[in-house]
């Protein structure tokens, strides 16, 4: 299903990746796969799927947070072991993961300080990142004083300051209201353009996927497999105004057509 890509152009490679939870044959759950997928270096890839289809399981495997049961997953040609998150991978979760006991600036500096960067370099990078994420005026504030959207910006900034080559986002705007989501989406596009990083976005919002991604992977109900790959025609300079493009409707319609049966099936899985 994938276009043939040279090794250098493949940033994340998944071959026959599956994930099974539990060992007892009566209770074990086939959560994922098999999945074959290549993420190209520098592309913006979104994954949509019915709830419970294994999107987050896929996310954990790509992040190196949990291992695949079968198959191989590689990042820049090196296998992911599921125990350590490789250098060069930045992760943003759906839940608020800001550190309540640190100021915004210290939150952002946390990772690079741990990595042993010099104080001057830490300050320079943190200042740049705060400015980029529109957090400069809040550098001395604590997360509890900020809105949910601003706290998620802090988490993105904390990841971004490490200059990841691959940015993984697991429903990062799931807890935010619609207007904030659109704005954060535009900021994510800007961030992607300016850093040149590869982005993998897990989302349940079809319009978000259609607006932000170069390619959208549609997952089936559990065990999640990629059942469709949809390319979007937007250029690199796109923003939220693409929602007015007639092709936007066609793309979301196609995504929904593919997803509808899977969502029904996911619902009956839950009922059963």
């Amino acid at each position, binding site marked *: 299903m994938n276009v043939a890509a040279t090794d250098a152009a493949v940033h994340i490679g998944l071959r026959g990746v599956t994930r099974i939870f539990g060992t007892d044959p009566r209770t074990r759950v086939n959560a994922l796969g098999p999945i074959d997928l290549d993420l190209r270096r520098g592309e913006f890839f979104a994954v949509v799927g019915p709830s419970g289809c294994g999107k987050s399981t896929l996310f954990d495997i790509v*992040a190196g*947070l949990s291992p695949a049961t079968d198959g191989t997953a590689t990042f820049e040609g090196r296998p992911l072991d599921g125990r*350590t*998150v490789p*250098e060069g*991978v*930045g*992760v943003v*979760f759906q*839940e*608020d*993961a800001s*550190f*309540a*006991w*640190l100021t915004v600036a210290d939150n952002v500096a*946390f*990772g690079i300080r*741990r*990595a042993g960067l010099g104080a001057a370099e830490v300050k320079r990078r943190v200042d740049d990142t705060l400015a980029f994420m529109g957090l400069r005026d809040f550098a001395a504030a*604590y*997360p*509890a*004083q900020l809105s949910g959207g601003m706290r998620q910006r802090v988490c993105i900034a*904390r*990841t971004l300051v490490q200059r990841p080559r691959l940015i993984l986002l697991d429903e990062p705007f799931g807890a935010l209201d619609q207007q904030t989501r659109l704005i954060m989406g535009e900021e994510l596009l800007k961030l992607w353009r300016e850093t040149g990083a590869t982005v993998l976005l897990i989302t349940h919002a079809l319009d978000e996927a259609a607006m932000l991604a170069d390619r959208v992977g549609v997952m089936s109900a559990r065990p999640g497999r990629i059942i469709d790959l949809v390319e979007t025609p937007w250029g690199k300079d796109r923003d939220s105004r693409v929602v007015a493009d007639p092709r936007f409707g066609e793309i979301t319609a196609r995504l929904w057509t593919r997803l509808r049966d899977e969502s029904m099936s996911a619902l009956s899985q839950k009922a059963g």
Partner: protein
Amino acid sequence: MTSARNNLLVILALIALWQLAYWAIGDLALRPPLDTLCKAAALIASEGFTAHLAETMRAFALALGIAVVVGVGLGFCLGMSRLAGEVGEPLLVSFYSLPKITLYPIVLLIFGIGMPSKIAFGAIHGIMPIAIFTLGALRNLPPVLGRTSRALRLNRWQSAWTVLLPAARPEIFTGLRLGFSLTLIGTLLGEMFASQRGIGFLLMQAIGLHDTDVIMALTLLIVAFAITASMALLAVDKRLRHGAA
């Protein structure tokens, strides 16, 4: 500022209530606030009081130190492992609800009469609430913090020390406040029943002599100390929360 005013109002109301109670009950069992205050001042100035106070403070400080280190350590170890936590928590809670005074004869047999028994008895009171709060604090942390530490490439101990412990700190501190009061109770109780020195001993002696003046003065001093310390700890507690509820 309003909270300071409210505190002052509560204190004034309590003093007024005390005075009213004195008028109702009389000299038989109570002394009025002003007399008690004068007696307390005289007691502090009296010969030998400083030695008793120093004895109690030393016992209390050591007991509190032991309670904090052992309590946080125990709670932390149990909190880091799901299995250990599930096994350990019911044990902690049942020990916490046990009236510790029933253990006093055993403590005396082990440590003898004097300083070590007081310290042990104070620490026994403080360890459990501190351990229970620490364990609860770690268990209630959102799982995303653990995932975030892994995403930031921290190992288990770095994650515990730089993320989980600071995240749990406000709730652990609440346990410390409770542990502080209970350790004070334990230390004084220890002094009351098997000691020749300390504030608890003075109190027990005054009870034996039915010296209402001294009983009231000592009680006032203990209450004043406990309230001051507790308010100071509460202020630190609020600061640790950085504006969060």
